[in-house]
């Protein structure tokens, strides 16, 4: 792609984004405004994640891009191609081989290492947005750590349904100080964030906010002492690889209620399947 800088953004813009990232890392969970630019992909389709990735990529990086846990969903393909074209870097579908992983709505099943960075695409960075529409007011609430309203919402859930009904984008407390939206990952993935060895970066392009969780930071889902956060998942096993510990997608097989459950993390599933094949071949 001639005429464009490495990874599309000019160096000034990358520097501006990196300054925001450094600030974010220094204040875990705090939303840092940044002068986000229009990108060749639309707002809402990953421009924040793309800007963060573009700012941190170097020529020797290996990039993995997933959407809904899969490498082959159309938007993941589109973003991976964008970086292949504008940065010429190596790309991969193997979590273990990647140095930077850009993701929409899932954390890979394979635990991440200290030499990896995960970049989350965030649609709505403000965890209080649905309870308080004014950003001027939510800024005050974060500054003063006034988070009672979020607990009221959880209280209401328990009063109405008997348990907390938030199933994705579960609000978390980062480093005991800031309330944060982890992005719309399923509640199932939330515990993976706690004391993760890898650096976690979050980019919201349309809302123009960057935030971060440095490695080995406490990330606790909000709950009550007598209604603790509970991991729930489908009782089935993956129909392709047999996994019982991964997040499963429900695939509609027919219109008579036929369903198949398969791992959402395509790399994880493929890895398990090839291991099984090797075992079968050896036997």
């Amino acid at each position, binding site marked *: 792609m001639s005429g464009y800088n490495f990874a599309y953004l000019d160096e000034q813009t990358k520097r501006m984004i990196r300054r925001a990232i450094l600030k974010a890392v220094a204040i875990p969970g705090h939303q840092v405004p940044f002068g986000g630019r229009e990108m060749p992909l639309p707002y809402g389709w990953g421009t924040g994640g793309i800007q963060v990735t573009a700012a941190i990529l170097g020529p020797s990086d290996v990039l993995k891009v997933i959407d809904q846990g899969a490498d082959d969903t159309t938007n993941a393909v589109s973003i991976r191609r964008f970086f292949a074209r504008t940065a010429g870097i190596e790309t991969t579908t193997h979590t273990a081989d990647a140095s930077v992983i850009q993701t929409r709505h899932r954390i890979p099943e394979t635990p991440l290492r200290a030499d990896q960075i995960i970049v989350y695409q965030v649609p709505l960075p403000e965890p209080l947005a649905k309870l308080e529409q004014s950003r001027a007011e939510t800024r005050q609430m974060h*500054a*003063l750590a*006034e*988070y*009672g*309203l979020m*607990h*009221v919402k959880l*209280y*209401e859930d*328990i*009063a*109405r349904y008997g348990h907390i009904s938030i199933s994705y984008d579960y609000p978390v407390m980062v480093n005991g100080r800031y309330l944060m939206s982890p992005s719309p990952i399923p509640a199932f993935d939330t515990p993976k964030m706690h004391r993760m060895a890898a650096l976690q970066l979050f980019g919201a392009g349309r809302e123009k906010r960057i935030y971060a969780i440095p490695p080995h930071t406490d990330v606790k889902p909000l709950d*009550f*002492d*007598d*209604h603790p956060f509970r991991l729930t998942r489908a009782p089935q096993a993956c129909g392709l690889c047999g996994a019982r510990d991964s997040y499963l997608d429900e695939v509609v097989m027919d219109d008579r209620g036929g369903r198949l459950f398969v791992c959402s993390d395509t790399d994880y599933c493929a890895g398990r399947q090839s291991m099984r094949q090797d075992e079968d071949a050896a036997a």
Partner: protein
Amino acid sequence: MSEHLLSATGLHLSFGAIWALDGVDATLWPGEVLAVVGESGSGKTTLLHVLSGRSAPDAGLVAYRDTEGVAHNVHAMPAPQLRALHRSDWGFVHQNPRDALRMEVSAGGNVGERLMAQGARHYGVIRESAIDWLRQVEISPSRIDDMPHTFSGGMLQRLQIARTLATHPRLVFMDEPTGGLDVSVQARLLDLIRTLVARLGIAVVLVTHDIAVARLLADRILVMRHGRVVEGGLTDQVLDDPQHPYTQLLVSSVLQA
């Protein structure tokens, strides 16, 4: 003699050419109810807002003595500290309960919010506390999960009181708490306020245009007119034997029941 809980000296506040507060002093002792009465435009509501830190005076001092006995200049306090005070040791009961309640949150959630804001993290305990407070304001605990829009005006006001008292404040500001309610509902609410305040030992600054409310609830009374306190003292003394002509006018204009 115990020390003042709240004291104000030399308060001045003007809006353009009008002096809403023209040299006002006031004191409040722990556990006492002070009524500020006057017609609309007398400055009584402005005084309430200045005492509670919501409006800044042009001149004068408002001092609050906390639980440790330390005196604070209310208008020199950093905003976070004042906000925290309003959520814990202080309360503010609005004339219109809809100004204070969250209408999209259940009764229990409304009562429990201040507790949760202070770090309460046990659902069962918060709920028990909410049930207890609903009983104390004579709302049936079966209504704990109901939405405020299903409550009558009187019930909403009692819910606001429960929400305000949940953190056991030492000082509550009340702005015409019975305004807009019909007479029988008013009477019941006044009775409730009187009982709760006495039982919990809460100090109250109460603004009202209604002398009868002041007589029923207040230990001491300040009479305001055109931004000035024209008379003050023990409620029964002032109302039975008013000295200032304006107070005499106010008292005589109350219809004898």
